[in-house]
């Protein structure tokens, strides 16, 4: 099992996550894309930890998970408040501030 496979996988995941942020209209799905990107980075970290024979990468992955969880809390709070105000979580509707 070469390291490269995992790196490519994490790259693909990262790209998918990024695309989700760009393409999907629903705020929650876009945020899921961000989470996917974070986890792709986690995968990279663990892979490199394996490559270097070091545990640091795995420890960092834990930290990232905690941070991602905190981000979810904040993010969902914001998205829910918008949903309650407008009745939809569509990102395109939120465009009062422009130019």
């Amino acid at each position, binding site marked *: 099992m070469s390291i490269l496979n995992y790196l490519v996988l994490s790259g693909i995941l990262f790209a998918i996550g990024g695309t989700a942020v760009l393409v999907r209209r629903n705020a929650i799905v876009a945020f899921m894309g961000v989470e996917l990107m974070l986890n792709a980075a986690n995968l990279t970290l663990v892979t490199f930890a394996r490559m270097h024979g070091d545990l640091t990468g795995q420890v960092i992955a834990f*930290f*990232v998970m905690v941070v991602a969880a905190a981000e979810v809390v904040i993010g969902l709070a914001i998205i829910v408040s918008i949903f309650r105000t407008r009745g939809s979580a569509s*990102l395109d509707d939120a465009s009062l501030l422009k130019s």
Partner: protein
Amino acid sequence: MFVAPHIEWAALSPVLILLGAAVIGVLVEAFVPRGSRRLVQVVVAALALGGALVAVTWRWTVVQQDGPSSLVAGALREDAPALLFQAILLILALLALLVIADRARGEDAFTPTASAIPGSEYEGQARRAGLAQTEVFPLTMFAVTGMLVFPAAADLLTMFIALEVLSLPLYLLAGMARRRRLVSQEASLKYFLLGAFSSAFFLMGLALLYGYAGSVHLADIATAVPLVSGMDGLLLAGSALVIIGLLFKVGAVPFHSWTPDVYQGAPTPITGFMAACTKVAAFAALLRFVYVVTPGLGWDLAPFLWIVAILTMVVGTVLAIVQTDMKRTLAYSSVAHAGFLLLGIIALDERGISGILVYLLAYGLATVGAFALVTLVRTKDAEGNLVGEAGHLSEWAGLGRRSPVLAVCFALFLLSFAGIPLTAGFTGKFAVFGAAVAGGDWPLVVIAVLASAAAAFFYVRIIVLMFFTEPATGEDGSATTVVRSEGLTAVAVVVCAVGTVLVGVVPTAVLAVAAQASKFLL
């Protein structure tokens, strides 16, 4: 065998004081009765910022004697630049806190309950009952904690955690404006989504660098740069992604799109806080990263940094010229200032560090002061009720005649932004441009000077509007008025104005202190 790291509690005192204050703030929310909650929160926050400032000053004297040191097993670094950036942050945060804590006609700048649906009966009841969202203060304290760690972070993980700790409260705070709730919520959403997006890039860059160097310590990465070969792609891509993550926080083009929308939508005291303090923290981290890790990569990263700097200066200035909203104009102007500051980063010269320090101090004072004044200028409708802040530039016409002191202070801050001599902005620009020339980047300086000249246009336009134009009444009978607050904003404005003039007229003291920060030591 696991050896617990030695924790230098004394050296961590500024951060601990603030963290403690933030936690106490949360507990205050839970336990203190509603009537006295506000006062207790403000006092706790102010004491914490003051105490942290004292602690930073004390650590400065220690570092002057004993030299820099690594803290918490290399996660943080206590050296002259870190302490100076922290000191500037605390000063600006204290001034911003004064504006955040201020109330006009009994109402502060924040919504009574952030969780209520805007325009609902519940919200109206909450407002009439005089509720106040006092969580603002512990949130601010958390944000400042993150900002304090950011300049001192000596490894990428700490930097990432600090980045998130400083950003998450700001995402929330941006959505808590009292009026124009829809816009405020939208600003919060945009900031969050784009911020999370860029944090993901930062993290990927962190992962790639880890892969390259086997460690996330900045010092280890720096030593690995010349040593490891064959994996240059990882190094370059990783460094670029980390820098991009930081450039987002700073507001550099093309990662600046959130800046105008968020600055406009957030409550104005928070905008002032964000505009000043996040920039200071982010530039401190960017400075540390670029100067420590990538000096050897100067050739590779220079093209992209040059392009970003030029684009930022030009786009910021050009877009600010065509704005009609006051907060948006100031937002784009802060984008342009980020461009000027990038010159100090690109310089990769000793004087770049001190130059950025002075510029950030000057810019921060003027920013906090300017946004503080923006909180005071409101629109009132035909019956005399306060409608909200006077957003449109035309509503600022003739302010010089009705509130001369306010207009003069605002003009002073605008002149400092423009970099007119005898203001702090000139000292800052001179320091940074001098560093850039010393680093050999004189084409950038030429563009910067041209952009400054063009920027002077929209600053002076506002001054002309205030002093030489007749005040206008809207078709619906609305007029602009300057509201009288409880006085904290006035104190903040006076301090900022005095600071701006002092640093401009007698800059030698500030320049001397900043020059001592000229060497990062690994």
